[in-house]
């Protein structure tokens, strides 16, 4: 449930803008599945169920200064940090103009230097030490900049999680680690991934604060990320935040989740959808009318249509570029 007592910090306009971004991420993701099932794009890996956490957290960051190290589900984060809808579709199609990788990486492997979205890979959790490196560098340069890194709860079992958090804690680095706990790592449920109550219980082992929040509670997520951000800027070191949500789609378009969970389980969680809750709250509060909501949906749809068309028709990188950029061309 959305906690209404905490809205004070955020204006009506901001709340509506947040809603728009959540919805945009969701609608893009839905379109990706349609395109995949129609055979137009080979692969989708979804944000569905995690948009609220991603957008709420992003709003608590400084989008003009901070570095983000998103993982493959973080469509919400990268949209907030400035990737355009067109660019998102270009990467889904793997076209030359894709700013993430020019079609070299699989979809959802984000990276865009001008927006401080740090390039990511497929092996999970390698981005956690990188985030510590960005935080270390900005601390060395005495800049007021935070690095924000995300990962799944399954990925929090990798050695790099431990090593990266410990390093950041010892050196009191301005870093926020957000674990988006969606209860599954592909087919493996939380109970076979970890034996602790909360992923945030791992924080004490690094001597840093750890918080678990409802991943559908935008205002609470905003609050804890904002606090973590302040601590980071104050030189008080990193924070570990866990958002609890549920993966509403199969792991990816290559997965068949019905081999390990039931339709009912998924359906139950769909009824708790955080975006719908957020919209209801906005309507209840009088911040949004049904008509305005419809307008938003329309605008999003049009933007997505245009982006799809553009990306679909855009050229692939030429074969002669295959060997470009293995190394730089000299100079520093």
């Amino acid at each position, binding site marked *: 449930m959305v906690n209404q007592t905490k809205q004070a910090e955020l204006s009506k306009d901001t709340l509506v803008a947040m809603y728009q971004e959540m919805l945009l991420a969701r609608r893009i993701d839905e379109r990706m599945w349609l395109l995949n099932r129609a055979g137009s794009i080979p692969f989708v890996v979804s944000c569905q169920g995690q948009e609220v956490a991603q957008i709420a957290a992003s709003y608590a960051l400084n989008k003009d200064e901070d570095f983000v190290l998103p993982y493959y589900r973080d469509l919400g984060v990268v949209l907030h940090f400035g990737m355009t809808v067109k660019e998102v579709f270009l990467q889904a199609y793997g076209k030359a103009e894709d700013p993430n990788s020019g079609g070299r990486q699989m979809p959802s492997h984000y990276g865009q230097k001008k927006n401080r979205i740090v390039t990511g890979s497929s092996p999970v959790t390698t981005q956690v030490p990188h985030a510590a490196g960005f935080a270390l560098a900005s601390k060395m340069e005495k800049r007021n900049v935070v690095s924000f890194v995300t990962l799944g709860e399954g990925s929090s079992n990798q050695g790099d999680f431990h090593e990266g958090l410990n390093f950041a804690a010892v050196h009191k680095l301005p870093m926020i680690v957000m674990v988006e706990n969606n209860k599954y790592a592909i087919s493996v449920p939380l109970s076979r991934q970890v034996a602790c109550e909360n992923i945030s219980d791992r924080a004490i082992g690094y001597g840093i604060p750890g918080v678990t929040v409802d991943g559908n509670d935008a205002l609470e997520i905003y609050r804890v990320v904002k606090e973590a951000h302040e601590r980071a800027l104050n030189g008080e070191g990193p924070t570990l935040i866990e958002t609890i949500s549920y993966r509403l789609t199969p792991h990816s378009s290559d997965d068949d989740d019905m*081999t390990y969970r039931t339709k009912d389980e998924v359906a139950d969680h769909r009824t708790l959808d955080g975006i719908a809750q957020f919209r209801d709250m906005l309507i209840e509060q009088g911040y949004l009318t049904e008509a305005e909501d419809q307008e938003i949906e329309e605008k999003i749809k049009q933007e997505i249509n245009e982006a799809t068309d553009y990306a679909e028709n855009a050229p692939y990188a030429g074969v002669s570029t295959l060997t470009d950029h293995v190394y730089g061309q000299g100079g520093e």
Partner: protein
Amino acid sequence: MAVLTYIQAVNQALREELERDEKVFILGEDVGQRGGVFLATDGLYEQFGEERVLDTPLAESAIAGVGIGAAMYGMKPVAEMQFADFIMPAINQIISEAARIRYRSNNDWNCPITIRAPYGAGVHGGLYHSQSIEAIFANQPGLKIVMPSSPYDAKGLLKSAIRDEDPVLFLEHKRAYRLLKEEVPEEDYTLPIGKAETKRSGEDVTVITYGLCVHFAKQAAEKLEQEGISTEILDLRTVYPLDQQAIIEAASKTGKVLLVTEDNKEGSILGEVAAIISEHCLYDLDAPVKRLAGPDTPATPFAAPLEKAFLVNADKIEQAIRELAEF
């Protein structure tokens, strides 16, 4: 005899070994109820239970390391790396531990673990679901690296790997999983680790290769036969340690050698093969040794045209054999 795909042959080998020896067990990510993301372990969780087909936390160093511990104890673990690309976090366990245990303990301990991993490109996997990783490990005494080229070989070699008393890295080409089909005996059989096999006998040009490229080489050889070019194909099968004798014989036989790999050219295991040939066959060669391999760029881009440009295929092999034949 049933016709099985490569992945079905893997699955059958696993099932039969689990049935044969209760020390055998499987561990890895999504190998249980899901049956593996490629279905290599399909049905095994149901048949053998969660104690013998273990879903592990998402942590490759632990998958390898726990397997190594269990192997030292006396079990026969078969660890799965979901993609070969994700073996990297486990390299310390594989190289520093598994490969060194017998030698460092002066034969007191040993480590009979099998580590399976799907490698290779051609399924739009982008940079991190496409790599050839054998070269990283092909310099580590104590380790064996097996890369079967067909369903029949996959079954027989996987059984040998599981029964081996030392650690075996078992690399399966993920595009072969569904692409390759052949008759595979239902009964138990094993194939020798450490031995290359002549897949085709020929007189004009020798192709030495392994894994999925054997399939492409066969296609090329069949086509060239109609032009009157006769191709010998040696399938390395075990890429470390190499079967030197077989390499020397195959190279000497025709005097014209084409080495093929899907891996990046520089530093691939073909370098070692070429070195063996240049040490032993100088006077038997009628042409310089030729290598056909991927370019020296990360394997491989996601975009289909770039992926295709990266990969070795039957046409490229055919062209290279023809050039050698005409040399």
